[in-house]
């Protein structure tokens, strides 16, 4: 099990040293969201109405930005061969790399999301739910995205194919993520939405590493 944390640590350290990719994700997230007030006009009622949806869609797209390198860097320099030959089962290798991806891209998105909620004049009743929903939703995004990343690992410029594969699978997270925030703002209970998000996360936690590892094994042959 120590290998698992070793790999998470290495990937987080690599991301911290290389920096640019993760900063890019956050900057993309902030920029996309700030474009909306410019595009739809500064009426605060309109912005408040669309805030939850805009933040979630931008988070979806942002988390996909860095996905194509999730396994590709290790595939191209031969590290993935060695990881596949190590003590750690490939499923756990996938899980470790996905966890590192979430720590380096998902967590920064969650941290800046209240700022964006403020920019879009979201009702303050929705803020806490937004953060909780993102805490449950973004790891699911990383896990589901990992399947696409594993399938396209040997394809150069596989980013477009990756988004075509992954975006449809993101839809449930989007629907219930937005639903939770809207329910909180509307004074309804957000609990069922959050429970479904949690269920999506747990299902992805179990199934996505299996699928990703199978896809990686195909690509390593």
């Amino acid at each position, binding site marked *: 099990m*120590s*290998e698992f944390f*070793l*790999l998470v640590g*290495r990937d987080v*350290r*690599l991301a911290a*040293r*290389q920096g640019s990719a993760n900063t890019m994700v956050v900057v993309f997230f902030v920029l996309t969201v700030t474009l909306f007030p410019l595009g739809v006009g500064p009426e605060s009622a309109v912005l408040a109405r669309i805030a939850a949806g805009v933040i979630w869609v931008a988070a979806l797209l942002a988390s996909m930005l860095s996905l194509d390198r999730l396994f590709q860097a290790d595939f*191209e*320099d*031969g*590290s993935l*061969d*060695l990881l*596949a*030959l*190590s*003590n*750690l089962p490939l499923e756990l290798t996938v899980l470790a790399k996905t966890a590192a991806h979430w720590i380096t891209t998902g967590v920064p998105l969650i941290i800046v999301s209240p700022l964006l909620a403020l920019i879009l004049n979201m009702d303050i009743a929705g803020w806490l739910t937004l953060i909780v929903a993102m805490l449950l939703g973004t790891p699911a995004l990383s896990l589901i995205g990992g399947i696409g990343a594993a399938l396209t690992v040997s394809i150069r410029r596989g980013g477009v194919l990756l988004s075509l594969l992954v975006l449809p699978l993101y839809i449930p997270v989007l629907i219930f993520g937005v639903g939770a925030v809207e329910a909180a703002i509307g004074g309804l209970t957000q609990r069922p939405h959050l429970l479904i998000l949690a269920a999506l996360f747990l299902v992805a936690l179990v199934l996505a590493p299996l699928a990703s590892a199978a896809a990686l094994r195909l690509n*390593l*042959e």
Partner: protein
Amino acid sequence: MSAGTERAAATFAGEELGCIRGERVVFRDVSFAVEPGGALILRGPNGSGKSSLLRLACGLLKPAAGRLTWSDADVRNDAHAHRTRLNYVGHLDAVKAALTVAENVAFWAAFAGNTAGVAAALERLDLGALADIPARLLSAGQRRRVNLARLAAAPAPLWLLDEPAVSLDEASAASLGQLMADHRARGGIIVAATHAELRLPDAAVLELTAATP
């Protein structure tokens, strides 16, 4: 200790191996056996399947025919044990540009459950002075040596080496030769694919020819 006792008797062998890649037969009916302390050099023209045979030997590829055995037991019966007993050096160096030389070697050593001996491994391949340098500044030969340092840092009885001496200078090739000699003296097994001369005295040679369909 278990690794030591395992080393004593184990013979690594392939029986009538066949390999198909992309609906093309790469090789067929390839058999070999390497005793403890022995070495096998794979030779053959480009595309004759040297790298494929090595990937097959470490389990990344599945044989289309035949089987691989470790002390007469099929390695597929316990794929995990096979993975832990081998060290694979592919033609890619698996060196992370953003990490230092020492961090690169230490990661793989720790990943194989062996944290001691990193400094010694670096010294064996004359990387001591480069230990704190980011790997992106290394030359091709130096990167190769970082990859080879894994062999010294994380001991395993079976070494599968794909062109280990490529882009190494004379002194480094000698270090590699010494490393391989020590490994064999401890009863280790080496299977290496190469075009260049490797310092492997008394090694058996397996000539691979491009298979006719």
